[in-house]
């Protein structure tokens, strides 16, 4: 299924943000916004759902901490208890520091790996930019034609009114 995309190219964040808002007001489907830096407020304007990553990170951290407490208990009190200076085999307070470190390690590695998986980022992936310059000095708002009421001229006018550098039309064969 081919897609007809309209891309408004901007050179500043203010116009980009305004274009995203205007597009949503007009009822156009904002496929994506490309920016060289994280522009404050775009996710609200695009209506993106808040990321669920913090919950995942919390769960992974908890998992790491629990595994570590169990492992320390098992190694020092069950598998081979060694008497160190007469301390109890199950020295829970002494397990706190390593448990904390392992929790942080699990949570941080979990956060980064899940970020890569969710955003489908992997080494040597070919980057497909909508227009060149979005990693340098250009912002792009990508709209998709969803039905017959979509009027290309109207889109072009809306973008131009918001000081778009240019407006491009792309027909893609692949589904994003």
């Amino acid at each position, binding site marked *: 299924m081919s897609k007809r995309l309209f891309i408004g190219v901007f050179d500043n964040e*203010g*116009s980009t*943000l305004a274009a995203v808002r205007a597009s949503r007001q007009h009822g156009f489907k904002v496929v*994506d*916004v*490309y*920016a*060289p*830096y*994280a*522009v*404050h*407020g*775009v*996710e609200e304007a*695009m209506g*993106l759902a808040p*990321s669920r*990553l*913090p919950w995942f*990170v919390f769960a992974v*951290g908890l998992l790491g901490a629990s595994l570590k407490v169990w492992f*320390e208990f098992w*190694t*020092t009190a069950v*598998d*081979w208890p*060694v008497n*160190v200076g007469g*301390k109890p085999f199950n*020295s829970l307070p*002494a397990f706190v*520091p*390593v448990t*904390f*470190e392992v929790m*942080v*390690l699990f949570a*941080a*590695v979990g*956060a*980064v790996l899940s*970020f890569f998986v969710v*955003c*489908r*980022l*992997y*080494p*040597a*992936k*070919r*980057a497909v*930019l*909508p227009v*060149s*310059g*979005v*990693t*340098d*000095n250009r912002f792009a708002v990508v709209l998709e034609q969803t039905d017959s009421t979509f009027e290309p001229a109207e889109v072009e006018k809306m973008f131009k009114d918001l000081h778009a550098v240019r407006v491009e039309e792309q027909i893609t064969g692949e589904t994003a």
Partner: protein
Amino acid sequence: MAEAAIALRPPLIDGDKTITEVTHDVCAPMEARPTALWWSALFVSSSLLLVGAIAIVYQISVGVGTWGLNRTVGWAFDITNFVFWIGIGHAGTLISAILFLFRQRWRTSVNRAAEAMTIFAVMCAGIFPVIHTGRPWFAYWMFPYPNTRGSLWVNFRSPLVWDFFAISTYLTVSAMFWFIGLLPDLATIRDRATAKWRRKLAGVLSLGWTGSYRAWQRYEVVYLMLAGLGTPLVISVHTIVSWDFATAVLPGWHATIFPPYFVASAIFSGMAMVLTLMIIARKLMHLEDYITIRHIERMSKLVITTSGIVGLAYATEFFTALYSGSSYEQFVFLNRALGPLFWGYWTMVGCNVFVPQLLWFRKVRTCVPAVFVISILVNVGMWFERFIIIVTSLSRDFIPANWFHYAPTRIEVATLVGTFGLFFTLFLLFCRFVPVIAVAEVKGVLKYGKPRMESAHE
């Protein structure tokens, strides 16, 4: 009033840059040929590295007996250097994580280099305990893995094992944090590179980053998560380092003040090292518009704050010793100030407490050479702090019959010199091959302190 602009905060970046200029200013020096100054700096630092490498090969083949350690002083130069380097790293995490949580947007100009410094400093630190194990090829025994020795596990009650976990977690998390921050900039390099190898390499490393907002949104969340995890982590790391000492019964080590004292000292020494490096980097890479005099002033203020905390800790330690009624504790502190290593103690107090007081004066804070000299003196003072804590407590403990002196051997000094070589070599290579300034972050703060052209957010 017509002068509404007066009410604005000073801009974070000088020179009225556009986002195109930011990309160019940071990336262009990397794409140009290295300067003669860079080559000569690399020559010096890699020569020092070579000295260190030779010393390390020698001491590993001959044994730790090449060090000046004896039965009384079992920790000295190596652990001093270990704590010194770990402490240096902490300012990088302070800037990247803690200042991020406090919304200190000025950090964007220095965080990339400060994080790189953290990683390099932790690498330098790791060398010392690994050699000190005596048989570094068995260093992996510190890791609790199922083994053929009955599965003999590590002793999880030991602060040295805590340290192993803390340092390795710290290195991993710092490296990931650095790489995540680097991702958008690697994409920028990939898309503007003309040299084929650079495009290829940046293409592999940038993981197909396009600047799509769906990725940006999650990127921001991950960055916040890592900052949130990095903040308690950095505090825990030096806390655990201090427990290496505080859980011992030795006078001068066995103190509850150690964790906060060590964390503050670490940030103090690290901040001084960040200043040293930033002053060099802004000159070397012509980044005066990005690392402005205001950045140097702000970092100087952090130096003087932490200097105050460290000074208070010195005084508290002394007071606690005198007030404790423990004659051993009292002796240790009098011995530090008046004993055979008195010169080291007073170097420490002078460099860490008195010299930074100069930074109260705006004239001094805005004078780059003065700040540079002060930052180096602080580094010297902080090295002596660790040396004094470790050596004075060990060399004169409870029984005078045990007392013994310690002096480093040439091999030990060469190893320290070598880690400085490693540190600066890595930093110089970093300046060449990685954007020293976080391009994507700086672009986000360009508007600061400028009158608003359009109402972007309302």
